[in-house]
């Protein structure tokens, strides 16, 4: 309560305007702001003030014009505004150019009644289609801000964060203890809990640079790419199935997933990563391996969901192009370009012509080999010695079958050598016809041959795109492929200032040129967007909160100078993601504790604490408590119970390429009983693994840089009753009982593995009492079994607990 009030006071300094609720803001933005803009502000806004009246802020409304206050907040009946819009005399009535509808009048009344909330345009609607929007111009060079507490900063980031905190009179939260830190950074960088040995080593290392060595170890681990690659797969809307209407298998999508993991592990420069995903097929290569890698990278453009049974082929084609534009726009630019398919973007200065300028690039790109339902996507064959061998092997198998058939047929004709197998009846019908056994065998062989031929040699291939006929596209009026407007030459949206203007030729689709434009060091968005994504994945929220939208409807950055500084530094560091990680996790900002103590350190009475001054932690004045993501929950369950299989890469999908996951039977045959890391489990659109679905795994059909964290009762049911948790608890218990011979030691180990700390005496007592009670409750079993079960129930509780599932 106290914090809420404080928050309201801090955020709403203008007199007597209570902080509008989000419901009110929604109402205002949906109904009132557009109405005022359309009907009133022409004459009562920034440009003109008829009658001395402005209606563009709450203060102006209350101040009113020549006739006095326009509104009395809370009292529509007494408000002049309402009186004038209801007036029956046309000469007096407002607005001059036509009466408002009943609904509009009601809405204005409702709005005044709720206290006339008039939020400043955080949504940017006031600056609709503003080409001067911050995100459309390149990041500026930023000096490191001066700070008073010069001891605090450890990396340049800290200067920016601390300067803002000092300006707000807030003191940062002290550094977290070492156990907390190593748990935090280990989950953060590799998505797994630290082992007790790793914790002990860190605690014992008192030399300078101990934490940096932990960070280096983690960044060098192969587990790192599995963690951070998975983050990128959220953005790439990665899935092993098409989803949508025809949920068929992407049996080769895993190659793209492995490519992403490997790219992160090798710290592939991000600019290179972007170019490969958009135009890898157009890049030169030095080796077969590099060629494959680059072809696989273009899977990014192909793995989106497609309506494969769309009967309107021209619509299907434009829908697929739309999905590519939309994903590319969100992933790299954090802009919703898709809106401009049917109309000029309502909020961002992206015109329909700009959309079709990009559509030309993707229409000149071949994604599909067939548009008739069920449509088929293109795959790159990956030629290699191995593929050659597979092909030769396949041909040999075909030849062998054919030979077997010929031989058998020959033998059947002669009828020799099979006499003993014949029965009397057949003997009666003796003749040149093959024996039934042979006929059956032949039939079987022929079927096998047909099946083999149909299956094909199954050569390694990868989803991806290649060049098509080079075309420019006409504007589709209202998105309708049947209503065409003028043809637009391919181009990049001109509102984004800074990078070179790409030149498109009639020789290439322009993907390469478009990708080069994206990673131009002066591009206003690409570096900012990825730096913000990385920040979000470390801290749980971005410097720009609307991770996938930097447009006018997105939020403004909380620390614009820091965002610019990081973006420029990132480019200067060769677009290295790992350098960015180091910069972030080595900072004092990152290493703060999550404590919300209200006590100040006493050094400076004028400063307030994070809890009091920054209740929502918008300024990064402490660490947030965060629940593990779906994959990390499962990986941690497997790791703590000693079951984790760290084999990397490959496919766990049991379906053939383009086979249906389940069509109409609703039986999903996908199994998830593997003990491999979570990112290797099949991602089935329309039917995501239920454990993941419950734990906020994002919809794999759309780009998602900002997963939600919900708390729902069905998650609790999962933790209480699911096999995956029960099995982990059982294995964990077995491991403790097998390794250690008394409960005290077992408890110590349990806490070390699961929580990374020692149990307190109170906890020991409570846990032992729990074990005894559970044992007593199961009377008719032998003692060993009882103890084992009791331990399993205790491990179950630990694995379901907040301390296990949250990182501080």
């Amino acid at each position, binding site marked *: 309560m106290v914090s809420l009030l404080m928050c309201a006071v801090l955020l709403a300094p203008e007199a007597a305007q209570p902080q509008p609720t989000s419901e009110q803001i929604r109402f205002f933005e949906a109904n009132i702001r557009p109405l005022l803009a359309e009907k009133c502000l022409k004459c009562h806004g920034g440009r003109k003030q008829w009658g001395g009246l402005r209606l563009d802020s709450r203060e102006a409304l209350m101040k009113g014009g020549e006739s006095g206050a326009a509104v009395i907040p809370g009292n529509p009946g007494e408000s002049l505004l309402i009186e004038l819009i209801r007036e029956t005399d046309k000469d007096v009535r407002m607005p001059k150019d036509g009466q408002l509808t009943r609904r509009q009048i009601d809405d204005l009344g409702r709005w005044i009644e709720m206290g006339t909330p008039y939020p400043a345009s955080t949504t940017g609607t006031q600056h609709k289609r503003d080409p001067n929007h911050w995100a459309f111009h390149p990041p500026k060079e930023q000096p490191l801000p001066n700070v008073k507490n010069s001891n605090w900063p450890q990396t340049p980031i800290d200067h920016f964060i601390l300067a803002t905190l000092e300006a707000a009179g807030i003191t940062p939260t002290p550094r977290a203890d070492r156990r907390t830190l190593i748990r935090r950074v280990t989950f953060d960088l590799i998505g797994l809990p630290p082992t007790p040995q790793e914790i002990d080593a860190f605690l014992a290392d008192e030399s300078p640079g101990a934490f940096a060595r932990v960070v280096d170890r983690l960044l060098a681990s192969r587990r790192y790419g599995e963690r951070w690659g998975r983050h990128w797969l959220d953005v790439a809307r990665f899935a092993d199935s098409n989803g949508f209407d025809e949920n068929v298998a992407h049996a080769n999508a895993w190659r793209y997933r492995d490519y992403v993991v490997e790219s992160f592990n090798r710290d592939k420069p991000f600019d290179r990563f972007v170019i490969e995903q958009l135009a890898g097929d157009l890049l030169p290569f030095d080796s077969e391996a590099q060629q494959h890698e680059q072809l696989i990278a273009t899977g990014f453009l192909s793995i989106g969901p497609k309506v494969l049974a769309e009967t309107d082929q021209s619509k299907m084609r434009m829908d697929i192009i739309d999905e590519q534009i939309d994903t590319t726009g969100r992933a790299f630019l954090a802009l919703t370009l898709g809106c401009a398919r049917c109309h000029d973007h309502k909020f961002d200065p992206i015109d329909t012509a700009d959309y079709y300028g990009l559509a030309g690039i993707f229409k000149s790109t071949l994604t599909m080999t067939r548009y008739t339902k069920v449509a088929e996507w293109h795959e790159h064959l990956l030629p290699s010695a191995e593929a050659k061998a597979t092909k030769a092997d396949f041909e040999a198998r075909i030849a062998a079958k054919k030979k077997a058939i010929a031989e058998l047929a020959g033998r059947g004709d002669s009828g020799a050598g099979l006499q003993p197998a014949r029965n009397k009846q057949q003997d009666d019908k003796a003749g040149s016809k093959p024996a039934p056994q042979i006929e059956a065998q032949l039939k079987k062989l022929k079927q096998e041959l047909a099946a083999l031929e149909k299956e094909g040699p199954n050569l390694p291939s990868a989803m991806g795109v290649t060049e098509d006929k080079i075309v420019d596209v006409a504007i589709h009026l209202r998105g309708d492929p049947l209503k065409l407007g003028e043809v637009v030459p391919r181009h990049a949206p001109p509102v984004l200032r800074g990078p070179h203007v790409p030149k498109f030729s009639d020789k290439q689709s322009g993907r390469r040129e478009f990708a080069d434009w994206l990673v131009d060091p002066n591009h206003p968005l690409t570096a900012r967007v990825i730096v913000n994504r990385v920040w979000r994945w470390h801290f749980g929220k971005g410097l720009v909160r609307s991770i996938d939208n930097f447009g006018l409807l997105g939020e403004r950055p909380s620390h614009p100078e820091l965002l610019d500084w990081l973006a420029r530094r990132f480019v200067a560091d060769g677009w290295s993601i790992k350098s960015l990680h180091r910069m972030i996790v080595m900072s004092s900002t990152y290493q703060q504790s999550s404590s919300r103590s209200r006590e100040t350190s006493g050094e400076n009475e004028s400063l307030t604490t994070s809890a009091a001054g920054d209740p929502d932690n918008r300024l990064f004045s402490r660490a947030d408590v965060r629940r593990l993501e779906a994959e990390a929950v499962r990986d941690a369950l497997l790791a703590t119970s000693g079951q984790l299989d760290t084999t990397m890469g490959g496919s766990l999908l049991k379906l053939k390429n383009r086979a249906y996951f389940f069509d109409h039977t609703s039986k999903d045959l996908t199994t998830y009983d593997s003990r491999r890391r979570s990112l290797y489990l099949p991602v089935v659109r329309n039917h995501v693994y239920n454990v993941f679905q419950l734990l906020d795994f994002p919809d794999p059909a759309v780009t998602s840089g900002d997963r939600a964290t919900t708390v729902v009762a*069905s998650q609790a049911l999962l933790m209480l009753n699911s096999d995956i948790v029960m099995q982990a608890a059982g294995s964990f218990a077995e491991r403790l009982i097998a390794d250690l011979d008394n409960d005290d030691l077992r408890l110590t180990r349990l806490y070390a593995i699961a929580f990374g700390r020692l149990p307190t005496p109170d906890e020991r007592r409570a846990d032992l009492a729990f074990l005894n009670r559970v044992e007593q409750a199961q009377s008719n079993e032998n003692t060993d079994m009882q103890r084992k079960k009791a331990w399993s129930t205790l491990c179950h509780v630990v694995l379901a607990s907040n301390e296990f599932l949250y990182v501080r």
Partner: protein
Amino acid sequence: MLSRRTLLERTAVGFGSLALASMLADESSADTPSANPLAGKPSHFPARAKRIIFLLMSGGPSQVDTFDPKPLLTRDHGKPFPFAKPRVQFNSTKNLLRSPWRFRQYGESGLWVSELFPHVATRVDDLCMVHSCYGTNPSHGGAMMKLHTGSDNFIRPGIGSWVSYGLGTENANLPAFVTICPTLAFGGVNNWSSSFLPAVHNGTALGDASVPAEKAQVKFIQNSKLPRQIQQLQLDRLNAMNRRHLRRSGGDASLEARINSFELAFRMQSSIPQLEDLSRETPATLKLYGMDDPGTANFGRMCLLARRFAEAGVRFIQVTHNDDKVQWDQHNNLKRDHEKNAAEVDLPIAGLLTDLKQRGMLDDTLIWWGSEFGRTPTAETADGRDHNPEGFTMWLAGGGVKGGFRYGSTDDYGYYAAENKVHIHDFHATMLHAMGLDHERLTYRHAGRDFRLTDVEGNVVHELFA
């Protein structure tokens, strides 16, 4: 991190939100009227219906064989369809194909019903038939998503989630949106997921179309290995651990909410099975739903469950008729399979209508019978019809709509919606209207703009209301 309020909005403690509401009561004054995302919310205007039961006939029953008789189709059997066929068709069809079933008029209203639905026919004076429904997508997947979410090219929340979001639940121990044996195909979970609405508005699925209704369960609702007594001990220990952790972490709303969610989940473990337990229903009631006949028992159980969830305060209950094929998708074997399908649902649906009426619940319960599209009056095969989104029949009952009423029509052969056309968006707008919700005001801000179930479309068909 999140503000406390945002967190509460996102915090879908769901089943048992009263506890959450009381936990937060001390700060509600500074905030919106209720911080609990599932608490009952006032409608925009007085509602006619408090809840919707949606009987989905998956696959597309044929309108010209069920509720929309076409004498000219019988007369011109075998002749070419005299108008242009749609530009986009799912498969190609041939000449006109008459209905193999006879139609009769029933009730005081004299509405026509074919031989396929003799029991529903006896309730015809409660039905409000809309013969002029049309959609845009001729494939099951696209049409199913359009029917549920209003969109066939984006993932959007379904109507059940919108109703949950708009009105909340009447029973704090239950979700607002339950779907019984939904099909996982053709959009699958997207048809009942909350998409960008808060997770609490997800449909809670009982089983799926691959299991019989008898075995349909909420995921993880029971523990097969641990007796309740031991689970209680676990819950107590877990609670103590979590409380300690909460103190040490300096108090965090999500940690608190999670503690609460376990208690609620534990209560749900008994409340949901109780609702599914039909042992207290009288033999007469069971018979009314056809539970005594193996042919109707499965769908009968779903309809009876729907009534029990409706009674318990769930806002939107969906029942899906879908076997291991696409139930009503008769590209061929129309005669055999439409007969079998209708026989499975006819008596249970009539039973549900009768039961609700007897209990005085039909007045404020809107029943919605329909499917993703209808079928062509032209022959795809000698005994089969293709998908047809251009004109088909859905009907409503109860919930303030006119009984024994027919609205709109198709052309003389039943191919295209002709008079008073009702698009899926209009149908959605109308049902929301019955629930007291203005489809233009039921919005949610996501990705920087306000979204609605009806996108930028939808007109309420006021003529349907009594």
